[in-house]
C-alpha cells in the first residue's frame, strides 16, 4: 500500500492547473482533499505520472452566495466547512443533512465537496443531493471559457471533463427536506440513500447507492404507498451496481423513500 512513483506540482492559480492538466487523461490527477485519491494511489488503483495539488490556490475554497442567489462552493472547500456554513444550513439544509452522513468528521475536514462529486464513488450521498437540487458544475479547460455542466451529465462523466473549479446550487426552494440512508452498519458506507426536497411543484426525489444516483421522477407523482412502490420500480428499472446488494436496494427503496417523504413533510408542516 505505497503509491507508485509520480511527479508533484503545486500551481498557485487556475491557469497553472490548466497548463499542467493539458488534455487530462489518466496520467494526470488533481489532488484536492485527497481522501479518495491518496487511497487510490496507495492501492495503485491509480498510477498517474503527475499529481497536481490545487490546495494552495487562493480563493478556491470559497463558499459564497452569488448575485443570482446561487450557492457556489469552490473546489477546495472542505465537506465539513460546507456542512457547518450558516448560508448552507439556512438556505440549503438538505446539503448539510446529507453531509452529516458522508464518511466521518475527520475525513470531512479534509475531503472536498467537488472532489466527492467528481469521484461519485459507490453510495455517494451528495450525488443524489446534486440531482435533487439541480446543481451544476463549473468546468475549466485550457483555451476555452468556463462551462457549466448539469449534474445529470457531470455525474456520468466525473472528473474527466476538465478542471472543476466549483459546484453551484440554484436558489433554494423553501420546503421540507430529508436525507435518510441505509447501510450495512450505522455510520458505514451508504447502501441506499434517499434525498427529498419538497418544492412548489411537489417533491423532488433522488436515490444514491446504485452505480450512480438516480432521479426518481415517477415517484415524485405517486400519492399512495402502493403507487410509490410501482413508480419506484419504474424509476429504478435496470438499475444496478458492482456489489451484491441490488436486490435489497430495489426491495427497500419504497420504504426508504416513504420514510424520507414523511420526514420532509413533517418539516414542511
Amino acid at each position: 500500500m505505497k503509491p507508485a512513483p509520480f511527479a508533484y506540482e503545486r500551481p498557485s492559480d487556475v491557469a497553472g492547473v490548466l497548463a499542467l492538466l493539458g488534455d487530462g487523461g489518466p496520467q494526470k490527477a488533481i489532488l484536492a482533499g485527497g481522501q479518495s485519491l491518496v487511497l487510490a494511489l496507495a492501492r495503485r488503483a491509480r498510477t498517474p505520472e503527475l499529481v497536481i495539488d490545487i490546495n494552495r490556490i487562493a480563493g478556491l475554497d470559497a463558499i459564497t452566495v452569488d448575485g443570482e442567489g446561487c450557492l457556489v462552493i469552490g473546489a477546495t472547500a472542505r465537506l465539513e466547512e460546507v456542512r457547518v456554513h450558516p448560508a448552507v444550513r439556512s438556505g440549503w439544509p438538505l446539503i448539510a443533512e446529507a453531509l452529516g452522513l458522508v464518511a466521518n468528521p475527520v475525513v470531512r475536514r479534509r475531503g472536498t465537496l467537488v472532489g466527492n462529486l467528481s469521484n461519485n464513488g459507490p453510495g455517494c450521498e451528495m450525488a443524489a443531493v446534486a440531482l435533487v437540487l439541480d446543481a451544476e458544475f463549473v468546468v475549466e479547460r485550457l483555451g476555452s471559457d468556463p462551462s457549466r455542466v448539469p449534474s445529470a451529465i457531470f455525474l456520468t462523466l466525473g472528473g474527466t471533463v476538465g478542471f472543476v473549479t466549483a459546484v453551484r446550487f440554484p436558489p433554494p426552494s423553501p420546503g421540507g427536506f430529508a436525507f435518510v440512508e441505509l447501510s450495512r452498519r450505522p455510520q458505514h458506507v451508504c447502501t441506499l440513500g434517499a434525498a427529498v426536497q419538497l418544492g412548489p411543484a411537489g417533491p423532488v426525489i433522488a436515490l444514491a447507492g446504485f452505480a450512480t444516483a438516480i432521479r426518481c421522477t415517477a415517484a415524485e407523482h405517486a400519492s399512495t404507498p402502493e403507487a410509490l412502490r410501482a413508480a419506484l420500480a419504474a424509476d429504478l428499472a435496470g438499475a444496478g451496481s458492482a456489489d451484491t446488494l441490488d436486490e435489497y436496494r430495489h426491495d427497500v427503496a419504497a420504504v426508504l423513500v416513504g420514510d424520507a417523504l414523511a420526514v420532509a413533510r413533517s418539516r414542511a408542516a
Partner: protein
Amino acid sequence: MTRPLRFGTRTPRREDPDLLRGEGKFLADLIPQGALWLTVVRSTDAHAIILGLDAEAAKAMPGVAAIVTAADLPAGLGHLPCVDLIDTSLPVFHPVLAGERIRYAGQPIAAVVASTPAQAEDAAAAVIVATRKLAPVLSAADALRPESPWLYPELGTNAVHVTRQLVGDPDAAFSVAALVVEETVAVHRVGAAPMEMRGCFGEVEPGSGRLVLTSTTQIPQSVRAHLAEILTRPAESILVRAPRLGGGFGLKEAMYPEEVLVLLLAERLGRPVAFLEDRREHFRSAVQAREETIRIRAAFAVDGTATAVDVACLADIGGAYGLVANAPGAAIANARGGYVMPNFRSVATSVVTNKPPLNVYRGAGHPQAVLAMERVMDKAATALGIDRAAIRRHNLIPAWMLPLDRGISYSGLPRQILDSGDYVHAFDMTLEAIGYAAFPARKAAFEAAHPRRKLGLGLSFMVEMTAVGPDEPAEIEVLPDGRVRLHAALTAMGQGIETVLGQVVADTLGIDLDAVEISLADTDRIPFAVGTYASRGGAVGGSAAAKAGKALIEVATDLGADLLGVDRSAVEWSEGAIVRRDGTNEPLPLVELARLAASAGRADALRASVRFAVPDTSFAYGAHAAIVEVDTGTGVVTVLDYAVTHDCGRLGNPMIVDGQIVGGVTQGIGATLYEEIAFDAAGRPLTQGFFDYPIPVAATAPRFHLLHLETPSPHNPLGMKGAGEAGFTGTPAAITNAVADALGQDLPLTRDPGPLSPARIRALLREREVAQAAGFSA
C-alpha cells in the same frame, strides 16, 4: 495493619501511561534502522498451477536486494506446522512459498526484498506469474461433491481431519423421544481484525550468529520450536521475541510464512529484514475464522428434558491447516455446554477449500457450538409450549452435580470435567438484569407505537474451556535497587497482563505495585512455554507469578538469615522485608538485602524459577441475554440491551474483566450482524479493508448490564478462570435468538451463512411472504 491486597481491586493499568503517550513500543516502532523490507507476491488466483515465474525485470529495479521463489528456498525447508493432528489426519500443510500449486488467492508465491517498502512494492508489481487456472472449490459442501476437484489430488479427498465423540446411547434416547428438534446452523467466515496488523523482522545476532525473530505473535516460544523444525537447526540458535501487540484475539496465535522468510533473508543478505502487513493484504493472508456448518439434532421428553444430542460439524478450513486443526472438533465436543444432556454424539469434519487458512479466533469453535445448541433450545421450547427460560433452567446442570465429568476424551483435548459454579443462579441473574419478566409488556408497548418494528429477547448459556495447561513458567529476581522483576512467557496484547501479574507479585511479596517490574515474551529468558491463548494468561500466568513470589520469599529468607548470621527459624518474611520473629531488629527490606547480597557476592541467590503445573482445565461460564429491535421494512437490526452474568472464578482486576466481556460481546455483535469475509465466484476476496468489513463502532454499542459470580476455580491457587473469550462466545446465540424472537422462530436465520445484515433479514422476510402468499404455512 497489613497492606491492602491489590488482587481483586480495580487497579488502574500499568500499561496505560506509555500507550496513552503513544510510546507503546509496538513492532513497527522497533524495526532497526537500515533494515531491508519484505513484500510478498501473492496469488491472485484461488486455485491454479504455477507454470512459470519471471522475476528478472523486477530484480533489476531500484533498491531490490533479492527476489526469492519456492525454487530458491533451502532444500529441506519445512512447511508451516499444525499442532493437534491425530493419526487419521491427512497432510495438508501450508508451504512457506507456493511451489507448484496455488490453493487460495493471497497465498505467498515469491518474496521481494528492497531498500524501502515502496521499492519492494514496485518490484513485486513487476514479478510475472504465469498460471493455469483450476476450478475453485469455495465451500465445504462443494468440496465433498464427487465432481469437485481435489485440492491435494494425491489424497483423493478434500475431507482431511475427522474427530468423533460418543457418550451414552444417543440412538436409544432418540428412539423414545417425545420431540426431536433438528437445526442447521451455517456460520460465515470472519476475521479477528486487530487494529495492529501482522509484522515481523529478522536479524542475525552479531557474535553468536543466532537468528533473532521479533514478531507480532501470541506464542513466541512455540514459534521458536516450530522455526527450529522448519529451518532444521537447533532451537538454541534461534531467539523469538514478541513486543506489545495491538490486539491478538487468536489471529496472532498462528505461524506465518513471513516469520520464516525474514529470518532466511536476513541471514542470506546480512541485514535485518522487516515485514509489515497492509490492510488489504491482511484480509487475504492473515488467518480467518469460524466458517462451519453444524447440523444438530436433539431429543426431548415432553417435560422439556433434553435426553440426547447428535451434532455434526463441517468446517471449511481453507487451502491448508492453520496452526490449530481441531478448534471445531474441540468446541463441538463441548456443544452441550451447561446442559445435562446425558447422551451425546459428535463428529467434526475439516474440509479443504480454496480460501485462506482457518484458525482460532476468540472463543475458537465455541461461539458456533453455543449458537447451534441455543437455537435448538428455542425451537424445543416453541414446539413443546414451554417458556424459553424455563426449558433452559430445567436442563442446566445444577450446582450439586459439579464437578461433572462429561465423558469426552481424545488426543490433544483436555478432559472435560466441569469444575465449579452455579449455572442456574447465573442464568436467573441474567433474566433479572435483562428484565425478562417485564419484557412482554415492553414489547407490546413498543410494537404498538412502531408498527413496522419488532422487539425480540434472546437467551444463551455458554461454558468454555479456559486456563488450559499443561503448565506455565515464571522467573523472578531482585534487582540491585531492591525492586522485583518477574519474567513471564506471556505476550501483552491489551488484556492488562502486566497489571494483573504485578498485582499478584505485589500481594505475594507484600510490596508496592511500583516495586514490581514485568518482563514478557522473550525466549532468551524463558525458552519453553505454550503461549497466550484460550483465556489462560491471567489464571495460569498469575498462578505461576504467585508461585514465583513464594519461591522468592523462601530463598530471600534463607539468604537473609545467612547474612544476618541467625538461624533460619529466627526470621521470616513480612511485607517485603526480613524480620526477626522476636521483633528485636529493624526489618531488613529487600533493597538492603539486595545490597548485602551483592557485597557478599551472592546476588544470584535472590532469584527463583518456577513452573506452575495446571492440574486440569477450568470451565468458565456465563448467561447472556440480548434485546434487539428489528425494522421489518428495512431489515435493520439494532441491539438495545445486552446482559451477561459471567463466572470466571475470582476476579483479579474487575475493571479488566469487564473490559474483556464488553469487548468480546462487541466483537460478537460485529460477527453476527455486520462482518463477513466474502469471495467472488472465482474465489478472489471481495473484502479489501474496513470499507468492506464494517466492525462495530460507538454507534452500535448497546446498553450493557454486567454481573459476576466468583466461584473459585479448584485448579489454581488464585481461584481464577479465564475471561478473555467469554464475551464473544455467548453473543451470536443471544442475538440470533433475539432476532428469531422478534421475527418468528420459523424464520430460517441460520440456514445460510452470512451476518444478519439488513439485506439478509429482508430476503428472509420476503421469502416468507412469498411462501405465505402461495399458501404454504409458515
